[in-house]
């Protein structure tokens, strides 16, 4: 064994001499936390593939099984794909963050992080920011599939790009809800169930697959105002054409609302784990 005798000598001045906190260190912490989560995605790509299973299944199911029976007043694939994109961003962000956070909170690594002079907000934020990268990776698979099936960005490049950014924002917002659920459940198994169970009805009771007008009146009230519907309608308008402003603004508002509320709740929950 090589004996580099200086290696173990205590010298906390190396740490203590550096500035307390500071914005640049916060960004450095956030980058380290994001980096490790991105490495997860790269090293276990099955997690990305897994989050694509449901959307791909839904594309096949709705485009080729139910689609023929659904009247949308136009091409059904063109109607369907924005809904699938939102579903994908939502499902991946929600379940991925819930399960990831719940599993990680039970490791010794969290204790180590919390015993270190690093930013605590960076731990959770690194997780949710990395979910944006997962959504980008998923889009890289889903968009070509959509194009193969006949979907087209008919409204030009910039609105399409804007739609993608809106999708990433909405996905990021939902991952905060996922983080909060992940912090609140008692076991990784519970996270597995709780992470995805609400997504299914949330996605279906919206304009993602069928026009909301066909639903009974009481359900229509909910479906028409669900953030899922506003997000899907915003994407449809941006990708295919039509008045977009109202739905885009509502989706942005929903997203920031979710980020503020569940970001705050999650951070508080995370802090309370140490305060006991």
């Amino acid at each position, binding site marked *: *064994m*090589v*004996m*580099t*005798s200086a*290696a*173990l*000598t*205590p*010298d*906390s001045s*190396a*740490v*203590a001499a*550096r500035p*307390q906190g500071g914005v640049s*260190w916060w960004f*450095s*912490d956030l980058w*380290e936390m994001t*980096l*490790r989560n991105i*490495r*997860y995605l790269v*090293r*276990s790509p099955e997690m990305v593939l897994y989050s694509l299973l449901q959307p791909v299944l839904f594309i096949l199911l709705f485009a080729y099984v139910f689609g023929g029976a659904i009247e949308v007043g136009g091409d059904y694939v063109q109607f369907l794909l924005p809904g699938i994109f939102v579903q994908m961003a939502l499902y991946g962000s929600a379940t991925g963050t819930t399960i990831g956070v719940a599993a990680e909170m039970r*490791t*010794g*690594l969290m*204790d*180590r*992080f*919390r*015993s*270190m*002079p*690093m930013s605590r907000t960076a731990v959770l934020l690194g997780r949710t920011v990395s979910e944006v990268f997962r959504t980008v990776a998923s889009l890289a698979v889903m968009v070509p599939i959509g194009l193969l099936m006949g979907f087209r960005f008919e409204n030009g490049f910039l609105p399409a790009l804007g739609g993608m950014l809106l999708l990433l924002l909405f996905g990021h917002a939902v991952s905060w809800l996922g983080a909060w659920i992940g912090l609140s459940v*008692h076991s990784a198994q519970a996270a597995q169930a709780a992470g995805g169970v609400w997504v299914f009805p949330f996605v279906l009771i919206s304009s993602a697959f069928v026009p909301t007008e066909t639903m009974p009146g009481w359900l229509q009230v909910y479906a028409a105002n669900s953030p899922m519907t506003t997000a899907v309608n915003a994407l449809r308008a941006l990708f295919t054409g039509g008045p977009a402003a109202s739905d885009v603004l509502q989706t942005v508002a929903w997203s920031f609302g979710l980020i503020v509320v569940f970001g705050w709740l999650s951070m508080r929950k995370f802090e*309370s*784990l*140490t*305060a*006991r």
Partner: protein
Amino acid sequence: MPTAIEVAGLCKSFGSVTALDHLELTVPEGTVHGLLGPNGAGKTTIVRVLSTLLTPDDGRAEVFGVDVRRDPRQVRRIIGLTGQYAAVDELLTGRENLVMIGRLFRLSRPAAKTRAGELLERFDLGDAADRPARTYSGGMRRRLDVAASLMARPRLIFLDEPTTGLDPRSRMELWRIVRELVAEGTTVLLTTQYLEEADQLAHSLSVVDQGKVIASGTPDQLKSQVGNDWAVVTLIDTADFDTTTELLRDQLGAGLTADPETLRVQAPLSDGGSLADLLHTLRESGVQIGDVSVRRPTLDDVFLAVTGHAAHSAEPETDEKTGEDTTWS
């Protein structure tokens, strides 16, 4: 000598479970202090309070004069924590783990890389440095864990049951690392369930039971309370049981335990009574002996000597983790 750890009247409860009950502890800088006790005694709770993971209900806890409640951020700069559960990122390589920890400790990237390389070599992980940590053996994982705690050259390092679940060779290696650490001036707070480990590593010991320090001193002082080695005599014939018990009591005196079920009689070998004398006496008496052996004193023996009752887990296994479990509710 400056004081590394100063704890006075420390209390902590989880609901109705009292984890720490007016605990007192002083550890001088540059020494290894062992916390010895069964599962659920409160050892891990002490470590979690001192490493700012738990807030105590009452009492004072200082690390190098810094109050853990008043200035936890400052405490976090000077400590390294190796908890009971290996705190390594499974999907990252050994090197990436260490560089990440170094960066979070505010080392520059080049400095973190250099230090990571040094520690990997030093802990015999050089060949495995670029493999994901999930491929590591238990011993390698522990060494990586300790290396991570040392990235920022802490003045005080907590080792919470560092060798639990390790094979003997890995345990020896970890002991060697701890000795080197201390030789170079680091203070170590070690928790263990093994008297032998405490004996090997610690300058001073606190025996912890139900959240209190029930005995403290050097390992030698504690061992002299326990008696050195134990003679264990296993009989073949029930008829010899009473005779043998009497013989051993005469020859070795206090501390004897006899179990008629297993036909096993054991007693600490006191300074006066040697094993040879004992064997001689037994042969003279004509009892039929199945087996005679000598064993090192255990934590149970310490407890028996100090408290008069055997070491027992306050709550089966989970008590030390009650803190965690409660926080999730």
